[in-house]
């Protein structure tokens, strides 16, 4: 039974007071360009997910609290939460650097796009 803290309202409680919402930072192609989406792009959006052993980024909702969605960085092995951050935010810099595999690629790509 994990302890979760909502970064929006500060409520801290058992995971049963929250709702797990799957992987974070998934871009919905149709919001940006509803016309030019390849079948592969749509497939990846719907079905392809990271499954790291270690640092992972996910969505949660303060289901029995303020009702707001937020992000969490969690170690899937130790189950330790490394950070809670806003639903339209990226994780803290140091965690972006710590991320491995597909997550590392993702954050690099985001940084490049921004630059």
């Amino acid at each position: 039974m994990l302890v979760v803290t909502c970064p929006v309202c500060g409520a801290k409680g058992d995971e049963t007071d929250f709702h797990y919402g799957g992987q974070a930072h998934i871009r919905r192609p149709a919001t940006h360009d509803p016309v030019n989406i390849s079948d592969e792009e749509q497939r990846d959006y719907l079905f392809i997910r990271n499954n790291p052993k270690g640092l992972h980024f996910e969505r949660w909702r303060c289901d029995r609290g303020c009702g707001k969605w937020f992000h969490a960085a969690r170690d899937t092995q130790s189950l330790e939460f490394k950070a809670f951050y806003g639903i339209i935010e990226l994780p803290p810099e140091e965690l972006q650097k710590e991320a491995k595999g597909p997550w590392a690629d993702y954050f690099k790509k985001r940084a490049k796009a921004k630059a």
Partner: protein
Amino acid sequence: MLEARFESALAQRSAPENIYIDMREISERGMIDLRGQTSDRKFTAAARAVLGTDLPKEPRTSATWGDAKILWLSPDQWLITCPRGKAQDLTNALVKELGDTHSLAINVSDMRAIIRLEGEFAREVVMKGSTLDLTDGDYTPGTVRRMRFAEIAALLHIVEEKTIDIYVFRSYAHYAWDFLVKAARKGSEVRLFPNSG
């Protein structure tokens, strides 16, 4: 035609016996659900103009003005409670004052049932169904928190040190009531941290 006949959620439940706290349904309060953005000064000003006080912005707090209470539900949502007879007028006043401001005020007086628990052990009875630590100093009078209670969603309002209101959706009122009657059964006292005074 006859006047509309009123029947609260727990009207058919009799007063419980053999329990170690006091417990009753509060059916005389009306409720208004108010949505708006605190960053919108027009919204906060309009709310203040009608309610007579600022909306509480601090999470899990409440504010009182006269016979109305404003309970924080979310950064953009409040539950205003007032005497039932005034709820529709107050809603209308809010809607009028808010005008075109992005907001939503709805009279939801019948959506929830309120169960009031009073007594030395009110907190411990709630803790039989909730993971919250009501013995923690954070839960001072005025504190409001939504929670999972037994198997349902509920809203907790610490009215006074030993008085707690539990708000549940109307359809779950019997379930919540029956759970509380069972949890508060005499002989099942726990007395958490018995020397803490």
